[in-house]
């Protein structure tokens, strides 16, 4: 009998694993491998979510394990949705979210576009730019607290130097309406490099021959940017917006370190408020409902956004 290539391939292919393990099919072995992951997913993600939904309809307080737990129906949700403070905190979160994304996308994309042009020291500049995102939020928070200090901080000194306004006459983190912008600046400083890196990946994925063809067609640099660079980098840009949006919706540490949510409630993001409700006030039922409201909000917005992202990718 002739030894065909198909025969040789068949001999070289290992016997199905199941044949070597008595009584187990391939499907069973697949389940053995997948089961721990599924179990982990169910126990760490799905079960807590279901449990949180259940708690959100009760008056449970985690610091009173012996107290009677009462079913309160939709009261927690009603309180949250009719509470002016909750809406104010959501607005603060939206302010933070929108402005950080705008600044980070504009600056991040610009930096990526500049760095994508080959020049000497390109790698060094890229490394220097990404340093802020490598730092811990605790370090960044303390670092910027000093920078914003009215008497010794560099920021107030720079403002005095540039405008003549006395350095100790205003406080970026204190009253006066600057605190919200102060945290937007810090977050932008810290996370713009992240957006830049994603955009850079997008820009470097555009084949050179497209630009060469555009050059042959005598397209201007401006036209090349609008018709080639931006459309082809857009999915990456939108991905960066998605990542930053989700991250900033749950921003916590940086703001706690910089302002503690103050002055008053001026920088009290929904995530900080939720933590206070859950682990300082110990209103577990209420905070569970709060968490569900936030989850639905971010899940809803992200779903709409991902649909838009997919449409852009399909073009």
């Amino acid at each position: 009998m002739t030894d065909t290539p198909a025969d040789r391939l068949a001999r070289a292919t290992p016997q199905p694993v199941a044949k070597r393990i008595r009584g187990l099919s391939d499907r069973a072995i697949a389940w053995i491998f997948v089961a721990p992951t599924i179990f982990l997913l169910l126990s760490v993600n799905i079960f807590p979510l279901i449990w949180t939904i259940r708690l959100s309809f009760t008056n449970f307080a985690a610091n009173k394990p012996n107290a009677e737990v009462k079913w309160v129906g939709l009261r927690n949700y009603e309180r949250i949705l009719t509470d002016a403070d909750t809406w104010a905190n959501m607005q603060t979160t939206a302010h933070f979210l929108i402005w950080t994304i705008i600044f980070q996308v504009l600056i991040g994309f610009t930096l990526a576009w500049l760095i994508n042009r080959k020049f000497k020291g390109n790698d060094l500049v890229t490394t220097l730019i990404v340093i802020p995102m490598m730092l811990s939020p605790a370090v960044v928070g303390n670092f910027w607290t000093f920078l914003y200090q009215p008497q010794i901080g560099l920021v107030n000194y720079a403002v005095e130097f540039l405008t003549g306004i006395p350095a100790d006459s205003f406080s970026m983190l204190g009253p006066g309406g600057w605190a919200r912008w102060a945290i937007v600046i810090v977050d932008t400083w810290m996370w713009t490099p992240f957006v830049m890196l994603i955009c850079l990946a997008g820009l470097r994925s555009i084949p050179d021959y497209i630009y060469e063809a555009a050059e042959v067609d005598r397209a201007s640099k401006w036209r090349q940017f609008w018709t080639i660079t931006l459309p082809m980098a857009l999915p990456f840009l939108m991905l960066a917006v998605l990542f930053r949006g989700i991250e900033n919706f749950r921003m916590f540490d940086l703001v706690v370190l910089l302002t503690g949510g103050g002055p008053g409630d001026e920088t009290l993001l929904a995530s900080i408020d939720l933590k206070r409700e859950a682990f300082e006030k110990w209103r577990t039922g209420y905070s569970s409902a709060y968490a569900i409201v936030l989850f639905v909000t971010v899940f809803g917005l992200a779903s709409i956004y991902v649909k838009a992202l997919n449409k852009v990718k399909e073009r």
Partner: protein
Amino acid sequence: MGLGTMMAHADDKELTLCWAAWDPANALVELSKDFEASSGIKMKFEFVPWPNFADRMLNELNSGGKLCDLMIGDSQWIGGAAENGWYVKLNDFFDKEGITMDAFVPATVTGYSEWPKNTPNYWSLPAFGDVVGWTYRKDWFERPEIQTAFKEKYGRDLTPPATFDELKQVAEFFQGREIDGKTVYGASIYTERGSEGITMGVMDVLYSYGFKYDNPDKPYEMEGFVNSEGAVKGLEFYKALYDCCVAPGTSNTYMGEGIDAYKSGQVALQMNFAFTWPGFEADPNVGGGKTGYLVNPAGPGGEKFAQLGGQGISVVANTDNMDGALAYIKWFAQKDVQDKWWSKGGFSCLRAVVEDPNFAKSQPYAQTFLDSMAIVKDFWAEPSYATLLQASQKRFHDYVVAGNGTAKEALDGLISDWTETFEDEGKL
């Protein structure tokens, strides 16, 4: 059960004591070496910085963790700790060992040990007496040119302020003044938003202006007491003091920032808990007679109260070494141990120590500490204290620092928040 028996049970065991990470905790580590030597029990310590202390330790207690055998928890926790079964009730133990609460400063017994308040149910042994008071730059006050300038401006001698009005005058006088070539400011006061800072500061003033938590004859009736005319004026005073006389950028300051501001010579007056005072005496910049200590000044009606700080030491109900933990408490309650505690910087609550004729002269701040402990009031020690505290943090910071609304609106809002909490608790 005698101490000897307990020692036998506790042989070869360890005890973990949980507290905040601060100077007194370091003093307790030193002090506890005597306990280790006499009992053979090894002491371990778990100290958490103040801003995270309540979060970390209340989570530990609430989750039934076994980290701590002994807990020096904040005074406000007592209600929750008692009702939730976190602490061991110590009455029987005290009775057996002959420890009487009459031996301790009454305010500390009420503040740190009793729940319900003013009943003989004890959940801790008073461990560290603390109270909000003031320090001032005595060396600056004594300078002739400063005294002259003050007298020219206010027509009276520059003396340590006895009333809040005088305190504000002094703070205004020093605000922006140049001393030794450096611009200094009037006062450091509590403004912290996140944990309990601004509440401790504001309350320290409000009490002396007539604020009461509720109707003494009808518990939890707050209308007319929390937002009384006096309370409104007190809150307005605190805001005025913040607006006129603090250093720039101090919109989120508590104990640590106050210590830094004072030690660095930035402010003439400083509001802070008494635990900071030994550190000032030891500091080269403000120690050695440069600092004076003040009991909280009087309000407009002459009433004088101060915000209670400090803690009691409790046995955690979940401990695996109950005998060892009780042995530590018995050891700690002894007169000679308490004497040593005071000498190391711990503020003893034992009357035999603080009423000793030599006590008042033992440290420059000893008399002020004694006088302050006689006028203390404490925040709600209810099981829901944390919810009540967060409400006051928000209302006070919003008005005093952010400048939103009026004092009356802030206090009316506080009643609304507190009422909702007590309704949820079933107390209203």
